């Protein structure tokens, strides 16, 4: 069974072929990482799958349903969730309220004018916060949380819609190294426990090789290698194009510490 199927999608911006005929598939419980040097087309691929951009050609199937031209919100209703490189949360709420709002949104009653918004989903919201390890911070305004915690709240918001497919754009960007492993471990646990497929991009190679079930390597818009971490690590093409360049690796490391 496949939760996400991408067939031969391409996208061109002016003279630049940002994504060139990429195909991939993702199964429930699976953690699939997309890596590649800057400008490889990872973000564009994410936006094609997420619905922010229409592809020039190819197709996107989510949970067996044709989704190539669907807007973002409609994809969400097919079971696609998402986290962002810079966390997108509801800053003016407390963590608990934010998750309750996300639950309201996911339950699809946005035009109810007089019902009470907060309360009906309180227990569920607490459970979700507990799942991401944030039950302590339930009453804290999101705007005052530390960034690592904001990322966890964001994950809870995404989970509120009970997604079967979760897109995570650089889930550990901006986090302290110690927090990263914990977050990725949490995500893998959620994927396994909820039967959710996770597609993520990541600059932190330690996280990628420690937690991805499969890895897709993109260079200049095209997939040059795909497979299990050990196979990718051993692939000479990958080594040459990407990992082998010691300078680049060092730069990446410097960047995430910087």
């Amino acid at each position, binding site marked *: 069974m496949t939760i996400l199927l991408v067939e031969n999608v391409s996208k061109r911006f002016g003279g630049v072929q940002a994504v060139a005929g990429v195909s991939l598939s993702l199964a429930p419980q699976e953690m699939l990482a997309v890596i590649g040097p800057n400008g490889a087309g990872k973000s564009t691929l994410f936006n094609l799958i997420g619905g922010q951009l229409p592809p020039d050609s190819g197709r996107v199937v989510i949970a067996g349903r044709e989704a190539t031209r669907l807007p973002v919100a409609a994809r969400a209703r097919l079971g696609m969730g998402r986290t962002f490189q810079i966390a997108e949360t509801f*800053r003016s709420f407390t963590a608990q309220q934010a998750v309750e709002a996300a639950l309201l949104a996911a339950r699809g009653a946005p035009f109810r004018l007089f019902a009470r918004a907060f309360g009906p989903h309180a227990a569920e919201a607490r459970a979700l916060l507990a799942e991401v390890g944030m039950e302590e911070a339930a009453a804290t305004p999101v705007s005052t949380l530390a960034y690592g915690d904001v990322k966890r709240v964001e994950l809870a918001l995404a989970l509120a819609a009970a997604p079967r497919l979760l897109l995570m754009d650089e889930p550990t960007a901006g986090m302290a190294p110690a927090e990263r492993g914990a977050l990725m471990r949490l995500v893998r646990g959620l994927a396994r426990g909820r039967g959710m497929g996770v597609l993520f991009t990541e600059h932190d190679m330690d996280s990628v090789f420690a937690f991805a079930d499969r890895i897709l390597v993109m260079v200049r818009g095209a997939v040059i290698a795909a497979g299990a971490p050990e196979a990718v690590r051993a692939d000479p093409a990958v080594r040459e194009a990407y990992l082998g360049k010691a300078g680049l690796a060092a730069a990446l490391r410097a960047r995430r510490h910087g």
Partner: protein
Amino acid sequence: MEWGFWLAQAVSGLAGASALFLTAAGLTLVFGVCRIVNFAHGSFAMVGAYVAVTLLPPLLAWSPSLSVFLLGAVLSALAVAALGAAVELLLLRRIYRVPELFQLLATFGLVLVIQDGVLQLWGPEDIPGPRAPGLGHGVAILGERIPAYDLFLIAVGPVVLALLTLLLRATRFGLLIQAATRDREMVAALGVNQALLFTGVFALGAFLAGLGGALQVPRIPASGGMDLPIIAEAFVVTVVGGMGSVPGAFLASVLIGLLQAFGILAFPKITLVLVFLVMAAVLMLRPQGLLGRPEPPARGAIEGLAALPPPSPPLRALAVAAILAVAFLSDDYLRKVATEMLVLAIAAFSLGFLIANAGIVSFGHAAFLGAGAYAAALLSVRAGWPMEAALAAGPLFAGTLALLFGAALARMGGIYLAMLTLAFAQITHAVAFQWVELTGGDNGIVGVRPAWWASDRASYLLLAAALVLPAIWALRRVLSAPFGVLLRAARDSEPRALALGLPVVAMRVAAFALAGALAGLGGAVFAFSRGSVDPTLLAIPQSVDLLAMLLLGGVQAVAGPLLGAVALHGLKDAVMPLTDLWRLFLGLAILLLVLAFPRGLAGAWRRA
């Protein structure tokens, strides 16, 4: 013969375009760097014109030559530049971090102050300027006499564009302006003295406005009412051209100038609407304007009406008690004022709902207040509907209008959205003002009478309270219902809201319609209270008043807009009888409020 006519028409249009470009270029530069939409920019042009009509006659008496004329114009512009620098140093410098809507409001306060200042300095009569020496005649071309000064003005536009381009491309100051327009944080990070840059840019913008005003005096007189028409057109040009883009402003000026020259031949009667229709059309097709860059996400959105404590029962009871007391214990005048305060309270609260909760900055909310009032008045007076039905029709009509406007602009954001709401409000105003057969034009519609059972002021006040207070409470309820909460969530993060499957655009359109309908309810109540309606109800100053109420009361609490409405209306009522200079006092009050309480009075009180 015809060719001569078309040429003359084009020359007129292009001459107007040049003058417009000078003013608009200043506005767009200031916006690009300081991110301030300066309502007082037209006032700067007006001051330029007044200084010019004062300076030029003695200068020309001393030596009547074109170069002296130009010298006089540049001196006038320099005087305005000095005024602009002073304004930046004393006022704007302190409010760069304030939400942009309040900045707009502060500059409108400045407009009021300058209006009265000019009146005091130069008197109420229009002052025509001298003609430019050597350019006062007509030049015969193709059988038409074309004013030589128009030809001169046509040349001025491109020359100033070239000089500005040179300044922007070849000087350090210009490069900084360009860099700041593109990326303010970067310029700040580079260690540039931002304060100096902002003052310099603002002075340059004021200089251009002053020059535009000064060079106009051979064509149009200096008059105390010229500021608002100038700023309205400069806004249109700036927005159509793309905010921050000088070449865009030039292109848009030429477009608008020619449109006016030739548009009046085909449509002599829809003069006011034409430019705003073009603006709306351009923005809907190309939201960032002809040569503008897509707007970066709006900074400093006004957050408020957030986690609200419910109004404690005493407060609610207090409101009811106050209204009962006024209804039964006071005089008819107070009853009328109290009714109007209720009207303004629901209008301001619905605007606060849009701005603070939905993140939709509307600068034309009075359009819906007016639409509700007109619908009720027309149906009551012209169609003979009973009051009850007309009162119900007001919010329905205003809500429908808001639904249409909302559908056209819900995909936009930030300052362009605000400008487009302004354009729509101006179109609505122009329809009411110029469609005399239907609306009575500026005379409006009189003789709007309540039903017999509500005809005395006390009963009508109670009726108004019975309509408005539940509406306020209902909207308050909406704030903590899924619709209100999710609107706020979408305001906090649109990407998150979309990723959760929320129909964000549809929700914003619905919010617009709801707010419009409530303002329309206020308008309908107002129509029967005043007994007449007229276009000032939906004009810019009315929208500004509503914003001032938000400013005064703050948007952090439900009570804010309501208190603001009561306070501003009360203030106006108290100050107006005391002095002819009430505009000056109102303007100063707005400035002081923005400076002292950027979060509004209620916000200040809550923090204390």
